[in-house]
């Protein structure tokens, strides 16, 4: 395998990993507050459509990303209204939000662009090469000649880590996820913290969706999120609820997805579908192999009713 092929492999690994990193980082914050939002898929697809429509309306990919974040947050709000506001079961609410998000975006897309889906071409989020860094041999162009959303993900990992583990706000957030009763007794408004964490997760998933539409595909397609919300939730577990590890876990999953290029270059002749299944099998194996030791927030998925 030549250096060109290796570079290509690394580039696609990062490209495939970035949307997962964005969504999983948001979900990390959400889960740390004690809420598991498996409606993330709905936020991602809404972010993709919102990003596409926003980029068309404002004639720019940057504002498209903002619209995507808003759309993702809106879907997060629907989830929060039921799961946090009413205290409904989080798993089932998340499932409904995913089904509804996929359906609603499909319906809106078909109403706007027709059932056949005339290929819609969007202002794209072009890669920006960072001087010097992008010239590092091998990994330089893979990591530092990406769309701006990728740099946003790199920056968010240490920022989210700092907020989570080094600030009073992060302590309150983790307390609501570990021991909501104690947090409430200490004066923390548990449901408000969870709402903010869930909206943040929705916005990040929306940005991930906008990245898919504007930086990857240059178009919107129904179901283009293709299960990334679910994978992001597995990535959170792989990354042990730590934003920095989550970034690496997402890149690891990206690499597993990009492996098909790598193995084909090495001359392995395996069926395409097996390559597609591979990242999921690898994630299952990784979960079984080394996550056993890590622990989810103690109050994850448990609804909270304030005592007043």
């Amino acid at each position: 395998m030549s250096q060109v092929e290796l570079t290509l492999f690394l580039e696609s690994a990062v490209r495939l990993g970035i949307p997962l990193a964005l969504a999983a980082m948001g979900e990390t914050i959400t889960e740390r507050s004690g809420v598991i939002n498996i409606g993330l898929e709905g936020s991602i697809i809404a972010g993709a459509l919102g990003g596409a429509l926003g980029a068309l309306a404002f004639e720019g990919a940057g504002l498209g990303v903002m619209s995507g974040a808003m759309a993702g947050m809106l879907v997060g709000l629907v989830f929060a209204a039921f799961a946090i506001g009413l205290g409904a079961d989080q798993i089932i609410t998340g499932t409904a939000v995913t089904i509804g998000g996929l359906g609603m975006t499909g319906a809106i897309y078909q109403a706007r662009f027709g059932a056949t889906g005339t290929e819609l071409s969007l202002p794209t989020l072009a890669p920006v090469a960072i001087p010097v860094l992008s010239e590092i041999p091998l990994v330089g162009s893979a990591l530092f000649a990406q769309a701006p959303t990728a740099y946003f993900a790199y920056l968010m990992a240490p920022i989210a880590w700092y907020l989570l583990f080094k600030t009073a706000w992060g302590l309150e957030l983790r307390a609501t996820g570990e021991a909501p009763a104690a947090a409430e007794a200490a004066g923390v408004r548990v449901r408000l913290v969870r709402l903010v964490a869930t909206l943040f997760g929705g916005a990040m998933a929306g940005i991930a969706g906008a990245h898919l539409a504007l930086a990857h595909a240059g178009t919107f397609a129904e179901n283009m999120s293709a299960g990334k919300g679910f994978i992001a939730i597995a990535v959170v577990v792989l990354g042990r609820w730590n934003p920095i590890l989550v970034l690496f876990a997402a890149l690891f999953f990206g690499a597993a997805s990009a492996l098909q290029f790598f193995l084909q270059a090495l001359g392995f002749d395996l069926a395409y579908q097996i390559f597609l299944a591979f990242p999921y099998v690898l994630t299952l194996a990784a979960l079984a192999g080394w996550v056993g030791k890590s622990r989810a927030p103690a109050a994850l998925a448990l609804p909270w009713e304030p005592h007043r």
Partner: protein
Amino acid sequence: MSAGIAPARAREAALLGLGAVTLTLGAGSVLLLLGGYDPAAAGAAMLRGSVGSWNTFVSITLVRSVPLLFAGLAVALAFRAGVWNIGAEGQLYAGAVGGVWVALTFTGLPSPLLVPAVLVASGLAGGLWALVPTLMRLRLGIGEVITTILMNFVGIYMAAWMVHGPLQEQRGVFPQTDRIIEAARLPALIPGTRLHIGFGLALVIAAVLAVMLRRSRFGFQIRAVGASPEAAAVAGRINPARVVFISFLASGAIAGLAGGAEVSGLTYALYEDLSDGWGYTAIAVALLGGLRPGGVVVTAIFFGALQAGAGAMQRDAGIPAAWVDVVEALVILAVLGLDRVRAARAATSTVEGGA
């Protein structure tokens, strides 16, 4: 946790379901109006396409409801035991592959042996697909929500690989298996219609589950573990791991039958996109049915009608079929919302000493 979404009395569950459907129809109509469609035309098209005639009802609606019925029962059983099996979709595909493999391989068997063999194989394959998440939960303590979802993707790609590779039709043109022989096909339940005995089998399973849950010792254990594994272990001297193990695998097997019955009763071949997300729709079916086998039968037929009607709605009223997914989501949210209101009212009346 499952106790919170499984009302104690059948009458309450039915009222909840009716309320949810009413809310959904209201909210759905408003959304359709906002989208610039005519809700009345949509409703008329939907009724025509689902219950417009006896033959439409039997050959389209009821036929469509069969996989939803199996998968809905699978989800209901798991949820009652506190097992979050979101993996019916993958188990369904595994069952379809297992069933079609037996049908294509043991072609020498007479029909009375081959048909049961096909169904047993699909159940076993579905159960096998559930075994991985079951063991990961019981041995490693990894939640089944994530693992069952991951197994869905593996199942879908495994089936896709089968129809492109080992099980592809002899001509090797299309991504599908050869059609299975007559002897492997499920006979018609009502002669002259497309409804096959898979529907009858699903009703039998629903009856067995209903009796088991209400009357048997194991059914009691399932309900106890679903309500609280710790309490069941301490107070009832129940082994929660054993209950979870059996109900998780049984749930997978029933979901596998959904795939087996579809390929041997309707399509007679395995295709890449056999299921239209039925494993996920099954969650709505199970919830709206109050996690009760009897309720699931009613709601599976209701969703069968929705899916049958969606086609007519798209053809006759120009409304994208994706709206059916929106309706599904609204149904789930309506059930959740109403259930929370019910729980809040029950709590208030207890506090006030009314009970």
